[in-house]
């Protein structure tokens, strides 16, 4: 039996971490931040289910895997797996491989005016002090060992700036690819977004990994919306069946700004998406939506904290989950309303469909309210497909498997419809339909029947 990780032992999951210094180079402030982050990670270790926020997500298997740092891959376009990720022909493509931004594979020449995109390492090389107050500001390291590990070890990332007043119609499509070498590989993508005053833009992310040895994408994102900004932020997480993805993101939404997001998880051995969104400006508004559709042994954890800091702000969260095989879903959603956040309007809904007896879900919605004049509601449902609807379809000659597919598609589509950019909504629908067809065809025997 492998030993369990604990705070005092070196992490078995990270090959040679004891010896590895925090990634070197860069300005002094960064070196200090990296050293501190590494110390934090060493102190905390890989969380066990005894840690409250990891109660439902067991990392024992991840901790047993000896990950090596993922290598830089020089190859060309062959690194992008065909048919993976969202199909967005009209978007400007930005490619990252093993956490390194790849200008050579990206559509930088045709970027619309008002958008600046740069690799994080390249940015620091020419402006070493510029990010000193910004990098890490929205993702605190206390209680977040994986964010600390990322902060200590990231190699590169993407810096995205949208100029004040710019209206960017062309969606930007970040394709983040994990490629393991001959052994399990770990990398730490980093994303830093700032949308200027009154600007609007759309960022779509496709996270994929190639099969073979497991990849572990340990990602950190930070998004800042200035006054009146509008940002559409959509994500597809389609990792290989044995791969891991832990994403930690922080958002700060300014006065009258609007943040609209949807994240769809369709693959991975274990995927955790942890969001901490702060409504910092009065009149701000956030949609934090998501869906997941997984089978086999997949485990998908969506953990979110929506923090209402300013008054007159509203937040809406709608999550839809579909689990089959022996998959497991976790939803932990908390709405925190600070004392000054009067007239808050908060809404949260998690609905899960369990399509086989081996599937399970844990949902923990939470409200914590310190203001007295607020409107907050939340709900959670878990169940099987509606038997009456299934019978109605079958009574019209539709075979059970097709009836099952139609109803499941309808269930997930409801939240995809909320994606405001038509071409992106269409691409998500295609993923949904393709995935359901594969399941219906018995791909990998992941469905055990409804």
């Amino acid at each position, binding site marked *: 039996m492998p030993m369990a990780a604990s705070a005092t032992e070196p992490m078995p999951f990270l090959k040679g971490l004891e010896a590895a210094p925090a990634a070197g180079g860069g300005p002094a402030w960064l070196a200090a931040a990296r050293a501190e982050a590494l110390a934090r990670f060493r102190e905390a270790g890989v969380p066990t289910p005894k840690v409250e926020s990891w109660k439902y997500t067991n990392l024992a298997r991840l901790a047993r895997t000896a990950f090596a740092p993922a290598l830089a891959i020089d190859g060309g376009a062959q690194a992008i797996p065909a048919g993976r990720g969202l199909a967005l022909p009209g978007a400007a493509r930005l490619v990252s491989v093993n956490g390194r931004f790849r200008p050579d594979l990206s559509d930088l020449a045709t970027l619309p005016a008002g958008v600046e995109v740069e690799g994080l390492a390249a940015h620091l090389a020419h402006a070493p002090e510029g990010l000193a107050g910004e990098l890490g500001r929205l993702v605190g390291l206390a209680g977040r060992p994986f964010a600390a590990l990322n902060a200590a070890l990231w190699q590169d990332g993407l810096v995205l700036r949208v100029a004040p007043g710019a209206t960017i119609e062309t969606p930007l499509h970040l394709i983040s690819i994990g490629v393991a070498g001959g052994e399990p590989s770990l990398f730490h993508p980093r994303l830093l977004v700032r949308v200027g005053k009154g600007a609007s833009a759309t960022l779509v992310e496709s996270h994929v990994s190639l099969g073979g040895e497991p990849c572990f994408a340990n990602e950190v994102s930070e998004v800042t919306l200035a006054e009146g900004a509008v940002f559409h932020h959509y994500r597809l997480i389609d990792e290989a069946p044995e791969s891991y993805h832990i994403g930690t993101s922080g958002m700060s939404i300014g006065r009258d700004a609007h943040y609209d997001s949807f994240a769809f998880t369709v693959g991975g051995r274990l995927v955790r998406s942890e969001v901490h969104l702060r409504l910092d400006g009065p009149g701000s508004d956030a949609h934090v939506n998501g869906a997941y559709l997984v089978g086999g042994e997949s485990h998908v954890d969506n953990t979110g904290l929506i923090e209402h800091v300013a008054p007159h702000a509203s937040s809406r969260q709608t999550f839809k989950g579909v689990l089959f095989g022996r998959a497991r879903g976790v939803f932990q959603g908390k709405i925190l309303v600070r004392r000054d956040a009067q007239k808050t309007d908060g809404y949260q809904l998690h609905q899960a469909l369990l399509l086989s007896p081996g599937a399970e879900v844990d949902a923990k919605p939470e409200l914590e309210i310190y203001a007295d004049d607020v409107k907050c509601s939340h709900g959670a449902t878990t169940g099987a497909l*509606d*038997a*009456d*609807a299934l*019978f*109605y*379809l*079958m*009574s*019209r*000659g*539709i*075979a*059970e498997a*097709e*009836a099952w597919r*139609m*109803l499941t*598609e*309808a*269930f997930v*589509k*409801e939240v995809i419809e909320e994606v405001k950019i038509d071409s992106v909504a269409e691409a998500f629908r295609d993923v949904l339909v393709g995935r359901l067809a594969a399941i219906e065809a018995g791909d990998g025997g992941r469905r055990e029947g409804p």
Partner: protein
Amino acid sequence: MALLEIRSLHVAVEGREILKGIDLDVDKGEVHAIMGPNGSGKSTLSYVVAGHPGYEVTSGSIRYSGTDLLEIEADERARKGIFLAFQYPVEIPGVTSSTFLRHAVNAVRKERGAPELDPIEFVRFMREKLKLLNITEELMKRPVNVGFSGGEKKRNEVLQMALLEPRLAFLDETDSGLDIDALRVVADGVNALRSPERAMVLVTHYQRMLNYVVPDRVHVLAHGKIVRSGGKELALELEEKGYADALAAA
């Protein structure tokens, strides 16, 4: 041999016996009416013929066109030509009516060896039937039965019958909750589908539908049994005397 042959059928729901020995023959070209007070088991009988998995046949048999119906599931029964117009049509959020109907029509066509219809061919086919039932094309763009009025739901059931062209149709209280104009539309739709090759069973609590769709045979169902059978005049007798007297006379 009749198209549908039901023999001493006993059915239980959650361990309670609802149908207590039904015998019924319906042949092609015939229209039968099954009448009876609320709770007598009319919907149960309709569901069992359609293949609802929630009803347990404890004994007896149902044969359709020579095959044992109890051996096959609801979808296969439908593809073989059995149709049920639901008393309470089910709402299906997120599934567009026309998409649903096209899937259903193609499933049935495939079974019959007819070519499947693509979306454009299907819309053309559907348009004729929509006219017949006074349903707008707009309604077909909405999710199945969601936000439909009571009358729209009933007309939608008859529309589905018209599209699927069944050989045996049970219409469970398709007349209830309709005003006189809507009742006419539904009755005209049903009459248009009467054919020497098709059998229909009108399940109803009231006689008024039978003024428009005149049955060949009328059966009275009470407490899970058919207690009387007769010609169309039996419906009028029930209307006059009420179920209590008609049952007392049985």
